[in-house]
């Protein structure tokens, strides 16, 4: 079956540009997460949605980062005025909300390079 998909897979932006990263979760998954993974590190939490509601955005590093999920399915992570320190892989994950393992299924990621 279809897994989590992300686009673009690679993005090169000049410092100061705005970027938008897209995530298509597994159909029927209520929960959606964004993580940032720096080179050689584990993923770090950015933000969490349950359906269209953004319930936790405590991991967003600055107000240049903005995420939305207006219809409770596809999500977009937007970074305004990109900086070099934003270079990382951005991972999206989705999961079922209730019961069971709460296992998160990850997409392939978007590798963002800010030059």
């Amino acid at each position, binding site marked *: 079956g279809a897994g989590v998909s992300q686009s673009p897979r690679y993005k090169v932006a000049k410092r100061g540009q705005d970027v938008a990263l897209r995530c298509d979760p597994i159909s029927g998954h209520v929960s959606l997460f964004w993580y940032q993974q720096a080179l050689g590190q584990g993923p770090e939490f950015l933000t969490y949605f349950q359906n269209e509601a953004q319930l936790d955005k405590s991991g967003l590093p600055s107000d240049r980062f903005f995420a939305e999920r207006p219809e409770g399915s596809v999500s977009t992570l937007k970074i305004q005025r990109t900086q070099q320190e934003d270079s990382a892989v951005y991972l999206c994950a989705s999961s079922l909300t209730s019961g069971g393992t709460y*296992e998160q299924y*990850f997409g392939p990621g978007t590798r963002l390079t800010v030059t």
Partner: protein
Amino acid sequence: ELKVEQNPLFLSMQEGKNYTIYCNYSTTSDRLYWYRQDPGKSLESLFVLLSNGAVKQEGRLMASLDTKARLSTLHITAAVHDLSATYFCAYRSSSARQLTFGSGTQLTVLP
């Protein structure tokens, strides 16, 4: 602060040998996860451990959980080259939905 410490961070081992990766976490957890990541790829779920004393095995990998010690282990038996990858543990605290990851253990299995 929620923390996860993995060790070792780097591990080179010969084919056929056994080894254990350790994962210590800092607070009460109701779920502990192990993921595998190949270079340039995303995270592949290996195990989900739900309760104290839980043990799961898949092929040459076995994971266990001791919630009292806040410790999970990933044991590798008779390693083969195909196991070369980075392994992450992560936990989900009782009060949050997101996962907190360790720094990963980069495993290289040498012929």
